């Protein structure tokens, strides 16, 4: 337990570091599933590890020892974690529980509100056009989900780009992307180290919808332009209107600090990722497995300790 219990606590750091490079090397749909699953398992494992560490502190409470009939001296002798580490783990565990409760209630209320308001949107068309000088477009989940686009957004785009935009939002609704986001936000609430993973999934679901839109309109540069011009429409000066020389396969190298929108546009202007880099897949699966094994090992050690302490009393 001395080492195993710290594996699930340290591996989320690796996930936080590796999420972005993985997102740029694995097709977006797979990346979304992989990162969401990894975040969920890692958050669960790190929480169990904290609970086990905090549990070793709880074992030292004399009243509990009397009630459960185990030997305090055995626990004190064989306890794998110092009391300070155990107390720190208990504090973190309490904070994580409170945070996840807060995020879960807030998210549930927001989902409920969205569903209620989506039903209240007039008409029965999937697309709802609202008069608004701000260029806006979003998918509101519900039964059925609706796509809300402002007049300013439609004005900023050509008819083909409008189709791309609507196909993009339709993909969000069809694949329930907000569920992935909810899962990673809850994971990040349990373990804040996973916040970069949650942010990366925010990017991969947009990429997923972009690629779906590219399939739907059959033209990747059109989707790239829809994304780019929609983003620029919210800015001061006018968006570029002419179709530049694209499709030459020349894409400016992106600097490291580039944001999500330029990255999405650049990804659409290059050829799609068809082959999966196996190495990244193996690393991702390996990290998750290692965390799970570490947690299992720590849990078994904890039970063994308890067993030993019980045995010492009955003897």
């Amino acid at each position, binding site marked *: 337990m001395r080492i195993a219990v710290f594996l699930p606590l340290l591996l989320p750091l690796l996930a936080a570091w590796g999420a972005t490079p993985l997102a740029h090397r694995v097709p977006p749909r797979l990346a979304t599933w992989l990162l969401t699953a990894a975040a969920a398992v890692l958050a669960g494992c790190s929480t169990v590890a904290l609970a086990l560490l905090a549990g070793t502190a709880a074992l030292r409470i004399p009243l509990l020892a009397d009630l459960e009939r185990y030997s305090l001296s055995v626990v004190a002798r064989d306890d794998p974690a110092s009391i300070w580490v155990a107390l720190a783990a208990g504090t973190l565990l309490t904070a994580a529980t409170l945070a996840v409760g807060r995020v879960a209630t807030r998210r549930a209320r927001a989902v409920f509100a969205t569903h209620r308001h989506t039903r209240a949107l007039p008409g029965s068309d999937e697309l709802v056009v609202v008069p608004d000088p701000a260029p806006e*477009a979003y998918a509101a989940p519900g039964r059925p989900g609706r796509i809300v686009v402002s*007049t300013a957004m439609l004005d900023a785009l050509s008819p083909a780009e409008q189709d791309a935009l609507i196909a993009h939002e339709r993909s969000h609704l069809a694949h329930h992307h907000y569920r992935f986001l909810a899962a990673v936000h809850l994971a*990040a609430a349990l373990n804040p180290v996973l916040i970069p993973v949650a942010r990366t999934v925010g990017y991969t679901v947009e990429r997923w919808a972009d690629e779906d839109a590219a399939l739907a309109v059959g033209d990747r540069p059109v989707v790239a332009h829809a994304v780019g011009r929609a983003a620029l429409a919210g800015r001061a000066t006018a968006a570029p209107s002419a179709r530049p020389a694209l499709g030459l396969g020349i894409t400016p190298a992106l*600097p490291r600090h580039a944001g999500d929108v330029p990255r999405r546009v650049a990804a659409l202007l290059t050829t799609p990722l068809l082959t999966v880099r196996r190495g990244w897949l193996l690393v991702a699966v390996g990290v998750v497995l290692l965390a799970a094994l570490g947690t299992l090992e720590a849990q078994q050690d904890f039970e063994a300790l308890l067993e030993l302490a019980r045995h010492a009393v009955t003897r």
Partner: protein
Amino acid sequence: MSSPPEEPSTPDRGDRRAPGALEKQVWSVLLAAERPLTTGEVRDQLNAQGPPLAYTTVVTILGRLYAKGLLTRTLDGRAHRYAPASTPEGMAASRMHQALAGEGDHAAVLASFVSDLSDTDEALLRRLLGGNG
């Protein structure tokens, strides 16, 4: 931590305020008002929020929004009074916005097509799209 921190959007201030930004400001003033406003009243409200604007600037912006069909206007004495042209869609969508802003979890439920751009992202995007502005 609940959700990744978002970059605060910095409203443009001063005379070099972007036309789009001003349109949005005028629009939100009219949305917040409970009755149609005259040009002077709109300007007073805007000046309470930021640096003073010329009367003609406000006239131009109101005219532009009216031309786009976003506003209705009525003649009151010698001045026009402006109000948001309310469509059922617009009313319902802005109600949804307000409700979710209250929940503080807006971005997560309504997946926006594009997020806010930083200045460096804007320059990068213009280079990617090959337009010079």
